């Protein structure tokens, strides 16, 4: 059957319009639920830096919300560590800051959310500070959250996520075992310089004696380099805030 060009074009146009309407309609209907799911996922990732994945998995979505609300408070700071409450006349809250979008701006113009994990109900009794991270892996964006203990030096935990790293290689940054390698590492060296933590090339070596090195992922050196750069960059961006908290802590312990 040979149809005329006009028929083919009409057919294609109608098909495109029908399918397009169907898709945009679905996206409209499901949009709110998807955004909710994304927000919940973000909360899980933030909490993942301070509590174990098993504990989070055991929680229902409502419990995650409740836990998050009772244990996490947040502020937004700029590159100098000063708190930011509004920008361009609009109010700023840490939950609505898109770290990925801010990443495109120059470092000194970005907003930096800080999530403070505190004792239940007591916002001043901070247990750890959670900093978002964002950077580039091998194929696409990688991001995560790093928790620092109140000494602003020891890593309490880290969660890492990615958009499109190679499954089985770079994508392993999402595994609990890889992330647990960061726990209890330190970001400052003995002379007080911010040296961050570097994932090494190769896998299977023991770095437990070196507080600034973690074991690598075999076959995923470029992803690991991306993680290293991301951790180092963002710790540097937060440095002003970290140091201000650190000196507070020192004053408090001196008293």
């Amino acid at each position, binding site marked *: *059957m*040979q*149809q005329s060009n006009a*028929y*083919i074009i009409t*057919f*294609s146009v109608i*098909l*495109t319009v029908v*399918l397009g309407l*169907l*898709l945009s309609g*679905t*996206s409209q209907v*499901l949009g709110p*639920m*998807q955004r909710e*799911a*994304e927000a*919940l*996922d973000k909360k899980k990732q933030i909490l993942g830096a301070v509590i174990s994945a098993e504990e989070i998995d055991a929680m229902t979505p409502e419990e995650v919300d409740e836990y998050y609300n009772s244990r996490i408070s947040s502020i937004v700071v700029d590159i100098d560590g000063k708190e930011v409450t509004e920008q361009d006349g609009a109010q700023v809250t840490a939950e609505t800051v898109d770290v990925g979008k801010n990443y495109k701006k120059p470092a000194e113009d970005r907003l930096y959310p800080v999530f403070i994990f505190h004792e239940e109900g007591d916002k001043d009794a901070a247990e750890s500070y959670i900093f978002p991270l964002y950077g580039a892996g091998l194929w696409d964006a990688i991001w995560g959250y790093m928790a620092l203990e109140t000494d602003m030096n020891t890593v309490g935990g880290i969660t890492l996520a990615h958009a*499109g790293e190679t*499954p*089985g290689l770079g994508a392993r940054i999402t595994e609990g075992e890889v992330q647990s390698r960061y726990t209890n590492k330190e970001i400052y060296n003995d002379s007080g310089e911010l040296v961050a933590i570097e994932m090494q090339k190769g896998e299977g070596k023991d770095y437990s004696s070196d507080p600034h090195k973690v074991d690598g992922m075999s076959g995923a050196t470029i992803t690991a380099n991306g993680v290293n750069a991301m951790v180092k960059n963002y710790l540097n961006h937060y440095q002003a805030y970290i140091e201000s908290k650190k000196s507070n802590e020192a004053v408090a312990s001196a008293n």
Partner: protein
Amino acid sequence: MSAETVEQVVDKKPSEAFLSKRRKKLVTDPLVDDNPITIQVLGICSALAVTTQMKPTLVMAISVIFVIVMSNFVISLMRNTIPSRVRIIVQLAVVATLVTLVSEVLKAFAYDMYKELSVFIGLIITNCIVMGRLEAFALGNKPYDSILDGFGSALGYSWIILAVAFFRELWGSGSLFGIPIFDYVSGIFGEDFQLATNGLMVSPVGAFIILGLIIWVQRTKTGYVEH
């Protein structure tokens, strides 16, 4: 793609039974004798990629069943209006729309699954089984027959990936659907009895091995020889 279905002409007897012998064959043939994975060797990529655990594999299987059945149905409905010169693009558009629907629904209702399967849901579009059934069957047959045909092929695909996932998760992670089977077994026999997991099964190589074994066993039983 099997040649016999291309030439198959629907007999126009008005009172064909709802599940006649011929229609039953449409569903049962792809399960073993004409299995898309083990005989036609289509859809291998996703069979290797998503089968480390049962749960995502099950979601993947359901998604593939939905996409194949629905696309077969829609294309069969439109088969007399589709201009033959652009039929591949029309098929692609329909399949891509269905796959996007699946991925949107997963994103809204099962975000964790959506994250885990991520790119592989999108890759259903390129699953050769889908386009294969459209070209070979749906374009020349009535909607109801096409639904049965799609369902059969999708089931044939699904049970193979589920079987592969069963062995990979059991041997690779010592669990099924996330339930730690190996731990229970150790619990029964006491502390000294520990079953070791095999890391090879978690990597794609494990899927090749399991799939190869399934194909071997199946071809030994059916006596199928590649021409």
